[in-house]
């Protein structure tokens, strides 16, 4: 996914910061980033998007999940220069025109939200799953969420919410809602 951008990344090895351009929640974004900063740090601190949460900072807990070029990634272990030329989707990009995405609505309605700290990451992992598999089984959902830790909910309601959102999305015109 990132190999085409390695040219830039290679140059970045000898400088402290590098200019990158990428699509963020549908908008072209050009910024200078430190070569040692993670995507999570850039999103949160440079771009003020605190919806991507940090926790383990080792790629283990999934709280920082965002979608890069259609794949769910742990943004805490993606170096910012790696997303040059990529399409990045964060939790802030889900709701459109003030209307919640069906996954977000399903989380609320199923009672899948408690402390909320894992919620952004869970929703993004779910979104990535549904972009690839519009009719997932419960096992598919649990496998997709296996890298997202939650301590409050016991997961059952989260799985149910994703399943419910999948069904809702299937009844919506595929052209008007992208996955």
């Amino acid at each position, binding site marked *: 996914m990132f190999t085409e951008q390695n040219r830039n990344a290679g140059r970045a090895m000898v400088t402290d910061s590098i200019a990158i351009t990428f699509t963020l929640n549908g908008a072209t974004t050009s910024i200078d980033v430190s070569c040692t900063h993670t995507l999570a740090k850039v999103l949160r601190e440079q771009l003020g998007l605190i919806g991507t949460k940090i926790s*383990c900072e*080792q790629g*283990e*807990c999934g709280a920082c999940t965002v979608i890069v070029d259609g794949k769910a990634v742990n943004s805490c272990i993606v170096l910012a220069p790696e997303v040059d030329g990529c399409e990045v989707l964060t939790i802030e990009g889900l709701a459109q025109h003030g209307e919640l995405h069906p996954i977000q609505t399903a989380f609320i309605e199923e*009672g*899948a*939200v*408690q*402390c*909320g700290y894992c919620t952004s990451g869970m929703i993004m992992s779910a979104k990535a799953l549904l972009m690839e598999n519009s009719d997932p089984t419960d096992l598919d*959902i*649990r*496998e997709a*969420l*296996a*890298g*997202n*830790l*939650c*301590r*409050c*909910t*016991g*997961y*059952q*309601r*989260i*799985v149910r919410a994703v399943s419910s959102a999948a069904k809702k999305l299937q009844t919506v015109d595929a052209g008007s809602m992208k996955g």
Partner: protein
Amino acid sequence: MPGDTPADGDWREGLKKAAAMVGWGDPKKSNVGRGIAIGVKTPIPASVSNAVAKLCADGSVTVAVGTTEMGQGARTVFAQIAAEVLRIPVEQIKVIMGDTTVAPFDLATAGSRSTVTMGTAVMAACEDLLIQLGAIARELGVIDREEDAEFANATIRGHQGPISYGELLKQYLGTLQGEIVGRGMFQGEKDSSHPLGGLSDFWEVVFTSAEVEVDRATGKVAVRKLVNVSEVGLAINPLQARAQEEGGLIMGLGHTLMEELVYDESGKLLNAGPLDYRIPTAMDIPTIETHLMENRDGPGPFGAKGIGEGPVIAVAPAIADAVYDAVGVVIKDLPLTPERVWSALNASGRGGKNGN
């Protein structure tokens, strides 16, 4: 303990329900077992909670409490209680939490106490507002006697029909100067002769049952079903209450089957971090079912009790009991890792292939 608040609730009903929900008595394959256990705990004795409710000029309300929100849903529960007492839409209630300069003293958000203690304080603060509104209405001649005050739809019914709270304040205090403040307090009963300083306000009682399948060859315990029945008095918000109970069950699953901090002999912690310290993931969860017993017998608002912590207590005995039922070994050390179960099976001669 003799002399303490009797442990309340209908335990026979709870046990029967938990047993029925896990399929107690249904035929089962070999290496499958079922277990059941009861958990009890009490909140913090002799504790204090205060609340303040402010009715603003436009009839909206802020409720200030020292309780904090950690996902348990207290913010929503207090808004529901306030809306119910004040007869105003819940959207017009804002709950401000955990600021010591804004809120009056609250001991702690802990011990499953907040719905009962702070809920009672919130209720009292809102009732205080109604008393003041009644007095204002009488003084304005809107009603004859305070005892006759009737509240509905954010209005008080006067001689000329309903008057909104905001309109009442405007007439009494002047345009946009209207605010009245209500206070409420809960104080748990102190008892210096009690070892914990006071009697228990209530008992949090849960009935947990489990169905497991044990792999004799590896010792792995697969929990197929986990059930929790809770005595909640009344669930102010049933969805939130059930969600809390489910979470507690899986927290219990973690500590029963997989969690342990490992220290070496020199005292160094070896498994800090999510990679080496195993908590349940979405791949580990059994079928979870919860049931709320609502006998409206709690000391809290509308008969509520406290919830949220109970389900974690009885998971380990229920699962350990089920393991015994499945393969006949009693294990008294947590967690029930595959190694521990396998060792117990082999020590008792019950190990080997799963067909036996």
